[in-house]
């Protein structure tokens, strides 16, 4: 923060927005965004929480049922299964994406020939949307798997790893950009000092680079974690949850369905289960918040000041 910067004292308002005109300018500056924000987020959010305690087909005929929807959600085999599938996917993809991105970024900051071209190439997949990516990779995987007379819709293992490959291909470049910025912001004199102290490459990496990279690592794990957890488009386009297997209790369980897709299907494939779907949405939201906060807390602790 540059010295001389003064912040408006809380609750007082600065000279710009003195009492008499504060309200008028609130209308001009804030109201358009606030109105849209209420329509687009605040109202749907609270209404959603309310509806998760209701039985409804449309929003007008909701009847209050208490925690029934939540109980039904936890008894919904498909939902529980999609939770574990999502967890597995998140763990593998977060680790792989960050490892790949970290080492690619490291290599690209060494000054090897063609760094700029590589950086451009690795970033491009991020600009292509999940639906289109899913379709492209579906075609590629199925063309390969045809030689082994199977396809993505028959084998959940291939579906899982297909999704992992797709996500690495798409996200590694984005995280790489953040890691490169991180590497470039490590002060050169720290390396200089380490070299003078006689540290070898491994020691420099673990005692200088890694601690200084913690902010970037925090951000990238946060982004990959929430992105992977909320993944929808790629999942829908690549496998759409297939293959479906009938469980012992007779319900159809989709093997490669992640939570977002499962909730979507609960909502829109069966109008009678909308209350359950909304409750699952709230559970999903709570899980994402808890995981995001826990992750931020854990990695922030490891950050150091230069």
């Amino acid at each position: 923060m540059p010295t001389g910067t003064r912040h408006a004292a809380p609750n007082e308002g600065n000279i710009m927005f003195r009492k008499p005109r504060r309200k008028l300018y609130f209308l001009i500056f804030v109201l358009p965004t606030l109105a849209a924000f209420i329509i687009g987020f605040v109202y749907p959010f609270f209404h959603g929480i309310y509806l998760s305690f209701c039985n409804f087909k449309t929003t007008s005929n909701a009847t209050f049922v208490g925690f029934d929807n939540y109980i039904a959600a936890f008894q919904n085999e498909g939902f529980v299964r999609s939770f574990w599938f999502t967890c597995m996917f998140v763990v593998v993809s977060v680790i792989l994406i960050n490892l790949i991105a970290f080492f690619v970024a490291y290599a690209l900051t060494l000054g090897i020939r063609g760094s700029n071209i590589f950086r451009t190439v690795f970033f491009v997949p991020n600009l292509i949307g999940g639906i289109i990516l899913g379709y492209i990779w579906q075609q590629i995987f199925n063309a390969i798997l045809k030689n082994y007379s199977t396809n993505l819709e028959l084998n959940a293992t291939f579906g899982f790893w297909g999704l992992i490959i797709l996500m690495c291909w798409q996200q590694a470049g984005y995280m790489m950009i953040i890691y490169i910025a991180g590497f470039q912001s490590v002060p050169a004199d720290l390396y200089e000092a380490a070299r003078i102290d006689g540290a070898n490459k491994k020691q420099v990496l673990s005692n200088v680079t890694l601690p200084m990279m913690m902010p970037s690592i925090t951000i990238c794990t946060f982004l990959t974690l929430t992105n992977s957890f909320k993944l929808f488009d790629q999942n829908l386009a690549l496998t759409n949850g297939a293959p479906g297997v009938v469980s012992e209790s007779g319900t159809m369980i989709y093997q490669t369905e992640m939570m977002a897709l499962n909730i979507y299907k609960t909502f829109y494939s069966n109008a009678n289960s909308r209350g359950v779907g909304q409750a699952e949405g709230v559970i999903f939201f709570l899980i994402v918040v808890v995981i995001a906060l826990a992750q931020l807390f854990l990695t922030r602790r490891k950050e150091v000041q230069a």
Partner: protein
Amino acid sequence: MATKAKEQKPKKKQTVGMKILTILFTILSVFYVAPVFIVIMNSFKTNGGISDGLFNFPTAETFNGLNSYYTGMFYGNFPFYKTILTSFFITIGGVALILFCTSMCAWYLQRSNTIVCKIIYYFCIFSMVVPFQMVMFTLSKTADNLHLNTPWGILIIYLGFGAGLAVFMFSGFVKSIPIEIEEAADVDGAGPLKTFFGIVLPIMKPTFISVAILETMWIWNDYLLPYLILDKSYRTIPIHMQYLNGSYGHTDTSAIMSLIVLSIVPIIIFYFACQKYIIEGVVSGAVKG
């Protein structure tokens, strides 16, 4: 390009290890562009050629010229030019609206800093974590009730749903601008509107570009929000693609491939036109997150 000049400065001698890395990355790059290349290649092949071998180059029999581009234009009984226009309209309109409204909002929230402003600000941050599935049903019903299910109406939804990230990034920047400049302008009788548009807005230009890039990438590729909210007579590119992909049975793969090529082209142009800004946008979006 500025980034290029910066990186050529420490021109290091290429050691053996670095040469190996260059070769390794060259191979990796080939794998990276391969999927896009495969799509382009197959858009010029007949359907038979595609199902015989996705990875084969077009031969004399399988070469289809631009035919699949012609059929693709109206494939799925929906004119593709309308899809592209809808996507362009929503993306440009949505980003412009978000930039204009949220920059004003963020400045007021930061400078006024009352309890109400703080509540709004923290709610904006909070909205970034909430998964879309939590609000999708109520949001689409709200949009229906308010008749926002047109390309014009959805801009308001995008403003509301995209406000979180934008307000957050603009606020972060406003915090770092010394308030004295604005106070001086105010003392001279400029008033908040003139102060904002004359002084604050020009200073905020880098953040404007960053926010614009991030929101463009989001809105252009967004599938579920427009799918649930827009009336069925409008389609954006992702909606159209998923519709074509989901229609089981006989699908015209080469037509789909040609449409993918057409919908990737604008993104690639966009990327090469403002590559520097995109990379800065990604980094500053992350640093503030």
